[in-house]
């Protein structure tokens, strides 16, 4: 079986099947549609728990003093904001977007590149709102867009694992 349905919806005129992600196999696999493990679709709770574990595993280990935001002066902060603003977009017509903000934790490498971006745990409960999720994802795309390039910071404030706290708002 090529496709692993995890839900089907009768549309009256068509049968719709929600497709599981194609990418359960290793990245780079050239399988056309990778076969999914044969176990039954995970329940929502199992899935959530699994992802919580994954999330913990993926988060850079919190290093004491890794948050460099407070060490930056105003000019340095403004420069970073300018760099990130280049790709920062939102949907002005969405009902509540004008009042939303999302805080990201950016983890840098030794050259100042943004190695990863994650949503501040304080904002994560809001992600169950699809409109907020879409808003937050656009912030993540702005931060992880390769076009941002290395952040322009003095060398003494950059190290592998340095973190910055950045709040996106319209």
């Amino acid at each position, binding site marked *: 079986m090529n*496709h692993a349905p*995890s839900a089907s919806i009768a*549309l009256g*005129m*068509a049968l*719709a*099947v*929600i*497709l*599981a*992600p194609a*990418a*359960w*196999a*290793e*990245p780079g*696999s050239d399988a*056309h*549609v*990778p076969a999914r493990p044969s176990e039954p679709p*995970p329940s929502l709770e199992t*899935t959530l728990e699994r*992802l919580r574990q994954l999330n913990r595993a*993926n988060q850079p280990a919190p290093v004491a003093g890794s948050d460099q*935001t*407070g060490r930056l002066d105003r000019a340095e*902060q403004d420069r970073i904001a300018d760099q990130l*603003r280049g790709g*920062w*977009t*939102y*949907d*002005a*017509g*969405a009902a509540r977007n004008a009042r*939303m*903000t999302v*805080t990201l934790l950016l983890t840098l490498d030794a050259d100042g590149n943004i*190695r*990863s971006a994650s*949503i501040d745990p*304080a*904002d994560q*409960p*809001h992600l*169950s709102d*699809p*409109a907020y*999720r*879409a808003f*937050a*994802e*656009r912030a*993540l*795309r702005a931060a*992880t867009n390769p076009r941002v390039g290395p952040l322009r910071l003095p060398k003494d404030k950059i190290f592998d694992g340095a973190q*910055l*706290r950045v709040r996106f*708002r*319209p």
Partner: protein
Amino acid sequence: MTDLLSMPLRRRGLVAASTALLAAPALWTRPAHAQGTTATGSAVIDVDRARTDPIPVAIPVFVGAGGDTERLGRDIAGVITNNLARSGLFRPIDPAAFIGRTDGGATPNFQNWKAIGAQALVTGKIDSQGGDKVRVEFRLWDVLPGLQIQGTAYTTTLGNWRRIAHIISDVIYERMLGEKGYFDTRVVYIAGSGPRDRRVKRLAIMDQDSENNRFLTDGGFLALTPRFHPTRDQIAFMSYVNDKPRVYLFDLGTGRQQMLGNFPGITLSPRFAPDGNSVIMAQTTASGSDIYLVGLGGGARRLTDSGAIDVSPCFSPDGTQIVFNSDRGGDQQLYVMGADGSGSKRISFGRGRYATPVWSPRGDLIAFTRQSSDTFAIGVMRPDGSGERILSESFFCEAPTWAPNGRVLMFYRETAARDSRGNGYSSRLVSIDIAGFNERAIATPTDASDPAWSPLLQ
């Protein structure tokens, strides 16, 4: 939720479930933050002044498996591209820029899509299932983290391919923007032809993207102001059949029309109640017109008796209030009253006359036509009359109708005749985002007016 909580540049996030599975209900509320620090006092860099650029999306043709499926793959990708582009919220990337190909199903080479600036990628493939049955599979990918964020397969008949393309467009719209789409919808409108002094006005219907246009009446009588039933394939409209202008119900399945109620006066400006069991409309009287609630199964109740022109009533989506147009105060203004006709209160106080109020399906706004000395305008205000915004202004425009997600308005615009024979006059449909951008002409085979947007199809 790896794709959300952590969006690494490396592709380790590929081991993730579709986020569609993960929503847990929670209200979104948040405290105001002081500039420069978070609520917990941590320093934070503020990135503001977001642009409103559309999301760059790549939509390669869906991969077919020979025969009809090849053509279908191109056509479906074309319809999706057109839908997303016309929304103004997506920017489909020119396929000429694509690097490499997709096989329609497997994990794409994300570097190729990143390189052309795509943030979202839509892939799909089509298999014949024998006879005229096809299976259309599509996946939506978040390019930067390299994740599938949506995937659905539809088994349907060939003839349904357009609807499948619209449904897929809606899924993409909803997943990327967090609001319901409006592509699997139709628009009923009045098609106009011939000179204005003996204008032929026919009821017509088309898909929201102007395809599948059909004329529903033959033009032997004037047809005006159609509106969709909230759930059924039924339209309420004003018809001059037998020279007796009244509100009629038109059944889209059978093509039959039937007078609604039995009124001595002219009945006009119908709109269905949100529950679909009745129609609210006006009846002319010696001194103007009154508003009536008329049951589809019979029975009518008068809700206003002002001795003035009360017309164009429209329910709030929760059915508790009615906004309407009245000149009881001297000229045309908007009023809101309870669903039983009680407690009417004027809400429009700007410069000019206000007309054709229509409550947003989201409940948060009322769209209207405003008439000033030389121009007409389409605008929105909150139900209490505050926050008025004009979206479009011209020599003549009126009759806004809401897309079912409350995001887009369609209306019609007329140009002035440039001579005494009426040359230069035209009447066309226009749509605009409620943020006031992305104004677009809606193609129709003839002149057009009085658009009404359907709910999302069932």
